[in-house]
């Protein structure tokens, strides 16, 4: 069939040009020596001016990590990581603690400008123009171009700047880097850090606990509805560094917050490790909405280079009637290995997981979620859409469990996979564990390719083939796109287009 042949040819032609955030910036960096040891951890802790308890916490995690073995159960394959061949700390050299944007290294600002991340508050407030790069080059439409969004920008190991802090403070919301939170709000950090993902959780989370360098901290006090979208933008720039960020979001009783996360990295031949930990805590009646557009460098057409994205994300619905919702659009990374989860501890709490995972080239995705029903009348919903093209492997792996006391637990899971091309694989591995007779779990999964009938229907109306496929794919992922905040939805749709470009024919 010529159309199939064409597809294969186009997939083969997929070029690194597709990744438009692959540039690297020369910025003077402050780095710790390569490798991992207690000294490096002390170094990181000292750099961050951390209290003793924090250092002890890190060292405890490190000692634990030494006893752990790397897990191998996921359906991903990669050469063994040499953990001594990574820089665990890399930060742009700048005046100590820039007080305002004007003190930040202009090169650094250019990076964000180039990425289209608005770090200047007025510009956004005015909402007049799209930021343009200093060299006159038009910036591609980006995730962060519109609206009032407070941004925490994390560059390699440190948070460079956080916008709208003052305005948020007026509402009582704390939004800052986790390093700052450790210094300024130790009581909150101590209370919640590691309470969702303990230092002993898993190999990569334990490593993260020992060496995490920065990340975002959000605290929304009782009864406050966060007045704007919060977001963090992660950028890996330096060579051979690992990025280990830690994010902690706490919504007190009745609070609401919506948080967005985005990320990019330069194109390089070697693989880089990104092992983050995200912890969410929702108390009574609180709601946290966490959205991710993951666009790390996926490697080139031969599968060389790219980010290893091994992340532990977990939300704890600690309070009654609390709600945590994860939405993710995964298009980047050489390997994605993560399961944003919800622990439904509070009675009547609910968890949601909406995911689109697009893989192309030689990307490997093993992602999904866990919904752990502990409280009474808890409910969860999982909608996962996997699209595999090229030579990629795309796995959904998810667990739904109801414990003895989780009366009336409800789950609905739907995971659909779409295969484009005959060299890729799509896999579905759901685990359902019911220990309560009143639990009601439903799971359905399908795998198919775009049907000729669907395509014919659209093309017959005068729409060219490539557009027809894009239309069908967008229809396929619609359920998830609808869950994204406005700022993200349009861009996510475009991202999916970019990732699949050249793979549909």
């Amino acid at each position, binding site marked *: 069939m010529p159309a199939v042949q064409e597809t294969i040819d186009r997939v083969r032609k997929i070029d690194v040009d597709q990744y438009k955030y692959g540039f690297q910036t020369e910025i003077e960096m402050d780095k710790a020596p390569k490798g991992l040891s207690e000294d490096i951890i002390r170094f990181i802790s000292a750099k961050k001016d951390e209290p003793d308890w924090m250092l002890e916490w890190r060292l405890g995690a490190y000692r634990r990590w030494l006893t752990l073995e790397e897990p191998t159960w996921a359906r991903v394959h990669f050469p063994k990581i040499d953990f001594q061949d990574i820089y665990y700390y890399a930060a742009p050299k700048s005046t100590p603690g820039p007080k305002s944007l004007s003190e930040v290294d202009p090169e650094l600002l250019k990076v964000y400008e180039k990425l289209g991340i608005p770090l200047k508050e007025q510009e956004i407030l005015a909402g007049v123009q799209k930021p343009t790069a200093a060299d006159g080059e038009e910036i591609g439409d980006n995730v962060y171009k519109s609206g009032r969004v407070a941004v925490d920008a994390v560059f390699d190991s440190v948070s460079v700047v956080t916008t709208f802090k003052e305005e948020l403070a007026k509402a009582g919301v704390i939004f800052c880097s986790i390093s700052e939170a450790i210094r300024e709000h130790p009581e909150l950090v101590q209370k919640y850090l590691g309470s969702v993902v303990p230092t002993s959780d898993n190999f990569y989370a334990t490593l993260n606990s020992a060496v995490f360098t920065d990340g975002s901290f959000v605290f929304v006090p009782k009864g406050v509805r966060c007045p704007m979208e919060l977001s963090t933008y992660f950028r890996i720039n330096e060579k051979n560094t690992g990025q280990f960020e830690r994010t902690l979001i706490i919504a007190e009783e009745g609070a609401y917050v919506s948080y967005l996360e985005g990320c990019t990295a330069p194109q390089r031949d070697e693989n880089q490790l990104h092992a983050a930990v995200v912890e969410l805590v929702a108390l009574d009646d609180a709601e946290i909405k966490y959205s991710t557009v993951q666009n790390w460098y996926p490697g080139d057409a031969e599968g060389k280079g790219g980010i290893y994205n091994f992340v532990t994300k977990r939300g704890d619905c600690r309070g009654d009637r609390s709600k945590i919702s994860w939405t993710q659009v995964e298009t980047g990374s050489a390997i994605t290995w993560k399961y944003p989860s919800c622990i439904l501890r509070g009675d009547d709490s609910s968890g949601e997981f909406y995911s689109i995972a697009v893989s192309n080239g030689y990307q490997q995705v093993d992602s999904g979620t866990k919904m752990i029903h502990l409280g009474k009348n808890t409910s969860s919903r999982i909608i996962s859409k996997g699209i595999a093209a090229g030579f990629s492997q795309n796995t959904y792996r998810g667990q739904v469990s109801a414990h003895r006391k989780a009366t009336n637990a409800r789950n609905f899971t739907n995971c659909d996979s779409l295969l484009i*091309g005959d060299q890729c694989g799509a896999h579905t591995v759901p685990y359902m564990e019911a220990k309560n007779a009143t639990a009601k779990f439903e799971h359905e999964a399908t795998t198919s390719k775009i049907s000729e009938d669907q395509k014919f229907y659209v093309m017959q109306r005068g729409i060219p083939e490539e557009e027809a496929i894009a239309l069908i794919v967008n229809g396929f992922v619609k359920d998830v796109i609808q869950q994204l905040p406005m700022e993200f939805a349009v861009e996510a749709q475009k991202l999916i287009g970019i990732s699949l470009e050249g793979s549909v024919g």
Partner: protein
Amino acid sequence: MNMHAQPQRTLAETALIDAFGERLSQLPGDGAVMVKRDDAIEAIKHGLPTRRVESWHYTDLRRLLTSVPAFEAGAVVKALAPVLEGSAVLPVLNGISQTKLPEIEGVTVQRLSEKLTDGSVAPGLDPYGDDDAIGALNTAFVADGYFVDIADGTELEKPIELQNLQAGGQSHVRLLARVGAGAKAIVVERQAGERDEALVSSVSQLVVGDGAQVTWLIVQEQPETATHLAQFKAHIGKDAKLTLFVMNAGGRLVRQEVVVRTTGEGADFKLRGINLLAGDTHTDTTMVLDHAVPHTTSTEVIRNVVTGKARGVFQGRINVHQYAQKTNAKMACNTLLLSDDGEFSTKPELEIFADDVVCGHGATVTEIDHNHLFYLMARGIDEKSARGLLVKAFVAEVIEELEDEALVEALEERLDGWFSTHG
């Protein structure tokens, strides 16, 4: 590979290894068979699978197999009346096949011990993977069973019933069958025993020839004192059809593996399973289905009823190989959880490497639908009877699909038998 020292052997592991040393001289087999046995016991020496082995995640055999009974040579057990009236019965009693066997036209039956002695079955004794603990256990100890060969074009008038019956102790049996091209057969595999501690391993291997049609029924009614580790492996040829029906209604620790591969275009596989779980028992049904060639189809429907403190597991993996285009595969696993102490875990998996396929699976776990219950009770049926009706209807649906009236009746009778003692 494993840097850690082996953990200390469990009592069961030690008992198995010791038993092998004692039994070895009595086990039939030529050189090739003995080499397979040695390899198999080596695998067991590395330890029984734990929950860290993915395919045994929900059935931690190392922890669950707490003791291993001795071989009891003296125990007496008698062949049972067949499930389907008029069947030709081939009994294996306490792990030993019989010499006096019924004549069936177009069918050659051989004792497996003979085929072990002459080594002709040696190639089939290999386990199918690193995690194939049942295959290894059986290969190490298998002493007897049958080889049933149904000649090309034979249409069996009466079903064949293979009975594997034990009266305590250990028995390790293998049942081999080849159904020739264009042949038609109904085979019942009966697994039962008396109330005594027992360890049974039973491996069935079936080759369905091109264009053949086979209905294979596994009726497992072991006592609550038995550990029953079973495996059913089949290859389905071109345009051949295999319907496998599995009914688990007994046993203390049960694992029934189903390993099926379509080897010819147009092959069709149907799995229908009923797990009736009661008491303090553990029952695992694990299926691995390989769609290895283009244009093959499969459907799997599993219904589970969980009562008492029973724990149930269903794992079903459908692999669609890269060149197996036009595969159509559907799997459903539905569970009724009827008691607070019952548990059911299910893992339906799809592994798909071909793009032009239609595959799907669905799984549900629920209690009895209150609307249905209300509907019946509003019509004057008391709650207990209404519940009974609904539960029975839930599983009977799968049986009724078998279409053959005699089969449906016979299986519904087994079902009634179970409900009368466990309802």
